[in-house]
């Protein structure tokens, strides 16, 4: 009787672990909420990380063109944007984590903006660079223009504007 119970519990555990193993490679939601034809490029200051299991998000205050102060809305409040990428565990492999990107970290990234007009987007295939501590890039430049910056994860240096070929990871299976 005891052996049957052990076998049952062991079997259930094995099935659970096997089932979980096939899940993480898949994206959690469709890319449809983002506009894959547009790219916006930012250099900003981290205000908060949402280390979500499915899609880590970095919330940040974009810096102005002079790279000396944060952009503000009409009410004078700092604008806050969010960039979404792969899950927290995968991002951590690239050094993107709560501890690796504390509030105040200056970084540069490109994103495909949300279609609903909210100030957020998906990183897509953009490179992500972190500036040295408390060292913003020169006016008009980004962290990838500073030799001391560090690169986090794969990606290409993004270019602001409309893409000739729309980015859509959903179509690539």
């Amino acid at each position, binding site marked *: 009787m005891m052996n049957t119970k052990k076998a049952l519990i062991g079997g*259930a555990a094995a099935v*659970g*672990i096997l*089932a*979980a*193993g096939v*899940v*993480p490679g898949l994206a959690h939601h469709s890319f449809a909420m983002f506009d894959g034809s547009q790219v916006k490029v930012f250099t900003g*200051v981290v*205000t*908060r*990380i*949402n*280390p*979500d*299991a*499915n*899609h880590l*998000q970095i*919330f940040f*205050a974009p810096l102005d063109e002079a790279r*000396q*102060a*944060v952009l503000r809305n009409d009410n004078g409040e*700092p604008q*806050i944007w*969010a960039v*979404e990428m792969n*899950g*927290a*565990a*995968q991002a*951590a*492999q690239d050094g993107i*984590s*709560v*501890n690796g990107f*504390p*509030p*105040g970290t200056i970084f540069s990234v490109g994103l495909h903006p*949300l279609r609903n007009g*909210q*100030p*957020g987007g998906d990183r897509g295939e953009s490179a992500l660079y972190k500036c040295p501590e*408390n060292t*913003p890039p020169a006016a008009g430049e980004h962290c990838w223009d500073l030799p001391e910056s560090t690169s986090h994860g794969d990606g290409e240096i993004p270019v602001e504007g409309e893409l000739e070929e729309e980015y859509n990871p959903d179509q690539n299976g």
Partner: protein
Amino acid sequence: MDFYSFFAAIENSAIGTFVRETLNALPIINVFHVVGLSLVFGTIFMVDMRLIGLQSVSRPVSRVAQDLLKWTWVGFALAAVTGLLMFAANATTFYVNLQFQLKMVALVFAGLNMVVFELITARNMAHWDNERRTPPAARFAGFASISLWVLIIVLGRWIGYTKGFNFSAPPAGDLDLDNLFGAISLVQTAVG
């Protein structure tokens, strides 16, 4: 007491960081959370249906409860431990998530419903243990229990679709966006 700092500390704990940054840890923990929850709901549903009078009516209520509730507690322990691990990985986000807050409230009510049943309604169970039709208070307890657990499941799944892009969440840490680079800003002011 600053709750946000408290939850930030949980998030930054070794266990929270381990769960969050270990490949596949969260999906595996989540699987066992669902297994635990399935045990809880599956077993408590049968006990509640006996209380309502729709299932196992030829058997005493006490016997149905005795057979099943031990597995409810096994499932609850599994769900609680895995739930705490998942919470620790991203505590600040869950803390400000309305669906998570409502789920915790529903859990408290499910607990209160159980306590009221055990301490008051079940005191004279001997009188109605073998009856097909239980007293109104017992039927209510069964109905409330099923309703609350369905609500907990709904809210639990809903969390997964509401915890992204929350622009109302407060910034982490003390960041002075008015004076980002200290000395640099001062120089700019002096020059400009």
